[in-house]
C-alpha cells in the first residue's frame, strides 16, 4: 500500500461552543432543550471549545470538568480553538486538540452548529440503471441523463440537466423546502420529504417537459419552467 493511503484528509462539520457562554446559567438549560429537540443529531457529536475572550481557564483540570459537563449532555469535547499559549498547554494536557480559528467564529451562536455550506454533489456522467447516488446533507446536480432504474437521493435539492427517467428523492432528511429541477421529466417517481408521485400520477402536461417540483401546502406541485 502506498504511503499516501495511510493518512487521508477529510472535512467535518463540528459544533463550536463558546467558553464564555458556559458561565451563563441559562446556557446549560438552553443547550439541553436544543439537544432534546433532535437527540440523534447530537448523540456523541464532536464539539470544539472556542476560548476567544476568555482569559483564565488554563488548567487541565478545568478542561476535564467542561469535558464531563458536555459528556453529560451526550457531547464529546474534542478540541479547542483560539487558545492562548498557556490555555493550549492545559488543553493539550487534557487530551484536547488545537483547531485553527475560523473566520467569524465570534458571531456563531452558542450551541448551534456553524452554518457550514455543504458542498453540492456533482455528477457529470450518465446515471445508469441500478445506480444509487445519495448526496448526504447537500444538493445533488447531475449534468447528464438519469436512466430508468437509477435512483437519486439528496437531503437538499436535486437538479438534472438532462432527461430524468429514474427516481428522484429530494429533501430525503425531511426538508420540505427542497425542490427537484429537471430539463425533461420522464421520471419513474419523484419525492420531496417523503411525499411522492409515481410516473402514472404525473400530469400529462408535465411529461417530457422542463419542470420544477416543490412541496406546496404539503402537496407535490409540478410547475413547467
Amino acid at each position, binding site marked *: 500500500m502506498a504511503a499516501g493511503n495511510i493518512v487521508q484528509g477529510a472535512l467535518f462539520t463540528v459544533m463550536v461552543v463558546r467558553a464564555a457562554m458556559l458561565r451563563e446559567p441559562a446556557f446549560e438549560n438552553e443547550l439541553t432543550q436544543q439537544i432534546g429537540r433532535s437527540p440523534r443529531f447530537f448523540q456523541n457529536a464532536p464539539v470544539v471549545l472556542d476560548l476567544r475572550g476568555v482569559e483564565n481557564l488554563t488548567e487541565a483540570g478545568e478542561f476535564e470538568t467542561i469535558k464531563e459537563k458536555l459528556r453529560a449532555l451526550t457531547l464529546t469535547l474534542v478540541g479547542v480553538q483560539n487558545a492562548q499559549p498557556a490555555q493550549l498547554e492545559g488543553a493539550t494536557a487534557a487530551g484536547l486538540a488545537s483547531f485553527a480559528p475560523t473566520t467569524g467564529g465570534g458571531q456563531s451562536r452558542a450551541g448551534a452548529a456553524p452554518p457550514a455550506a455543504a458542498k453540492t454533489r456533482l455528477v457529470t*456522467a*450518465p446515471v*445508469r*440503471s*441500478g*445506480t444509487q447516488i445519495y448526496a448526504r446533507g447537500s444538493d445533488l446536480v447531475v449534468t*447528464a*441523463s438519469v*436512466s*430508468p*432504474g*437509477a435512483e437519486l437521493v439528496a437531503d437538499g435539492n436535486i437538479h438534472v440537466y438532462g432527461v430524468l*427517467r429514474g427516481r428522484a428523492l429530494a429533501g430525503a432528511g425531511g426538508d420540505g423546502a427542497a425542490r427537484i429541477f429537471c430539463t425533461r421529466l420522464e421520471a419513474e417517481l419523484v419525492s420531496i420529504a417523503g411525499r411522492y408521485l409515481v410516473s402514472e400520477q404525473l400530469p400529462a402536461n408535465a411529461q417530457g417537459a422542463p419542470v420544477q417540483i416543490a412541496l406546496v401546502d404539503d402537496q407535490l406541485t409540478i410547475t413547467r419552467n
Partner: protein
Amino acid sequence: MAKVIVVTSGKGGVGKTTTSAAFAAGLALRGHKTVVIDFDVGLRNLDLVMGCERRVVFDFINVINGDANLNQALIKDKRHDNLFIFPTSQTRDKNALKRDGVERVMEELKQQFEYIICDSPAGIEHGAITALYFADSAIIVTNPEVSSVRDSDRIIGILASKSRRAERNEPPVDVHLLLTRYDPARVTRGEMLAVDDVKEILSIPLLGVIPESESVLRASNTGTPVVFDEDSPAGRAYVDAVARFLGETREMRFVKPERRSFFRALFGRA
C-alpha cells in the same frame, strides 16, 4: 499491445455469442490474430457457433486450474489462420472462474494475440463480472426493445464501476453500442425502438446495426460465423462494424426499410 474486448449485454438471447463469433472472425479476416473465449461456463455454446465442437479436448477451466496448458486448449479455426477459439467447460459452473487464474490466462493470451474477445454470459453475476473485469473495450449488444435497453444500461454502469480499469482509476473501458436483430419495417410500424431512441437512452457511440436476418440462424446451426457469408446483410453489417471498430468511417446500412424489388413484389416474396 493486445486489446481485450468483452461482448456483453446483461440480457440473454440478444446475440452475444453470434456477435463474439462474427467479430472475432471479422478481426481475423482483417489480418489481426484473434482469440475468442467462452465465459459462459456450464452453458457452452461458442464452440457450436464456431463449428469446432468436435475438436474440444481441454478447456478454459482446465487451463485456469493448471490441468492443461494454453496451447493444448486453444483450437485453431479451419477457415482462417488468424482465428482461435478458447472453449469453456460444460460440466462446471461459473464459480470455477477464479479471478487470479483468469488473470494469468489473460496475460498469457496477450503475449500471443492482438485481440482477445470475451463472450460474456448473461446476467450481472460472477460469470458476467469476470468476463468484463479485464476489458479494455466493450461491445454492448442490444435489441431494439425496452427490457434489453434497460439491461444494457445496467451493464454499462457496471463496466464503469466494477471493471479493473475502474478499480485502478485507469482510463475507462471504451464502450460501443451494437444494435442487433433490427427490423426497420417493424420500427416504421412502431413495434420496435428506433436506432436513435436507443442511442439517446444509452448515450454511447453506435458501432453498428445488425439487421434481423435468417442467415444468422443458419450461420449458428452450421457453425459458420456470419461474416463468412458474404451474401448475408447481417454478415455485411458485422464486417462494417468491425471496420468502424478499427477506426474506419462507414455509412450505416440496413437502418431503413428495404424497398421491395419489382420481382419480389410481383411474386409476393418477402
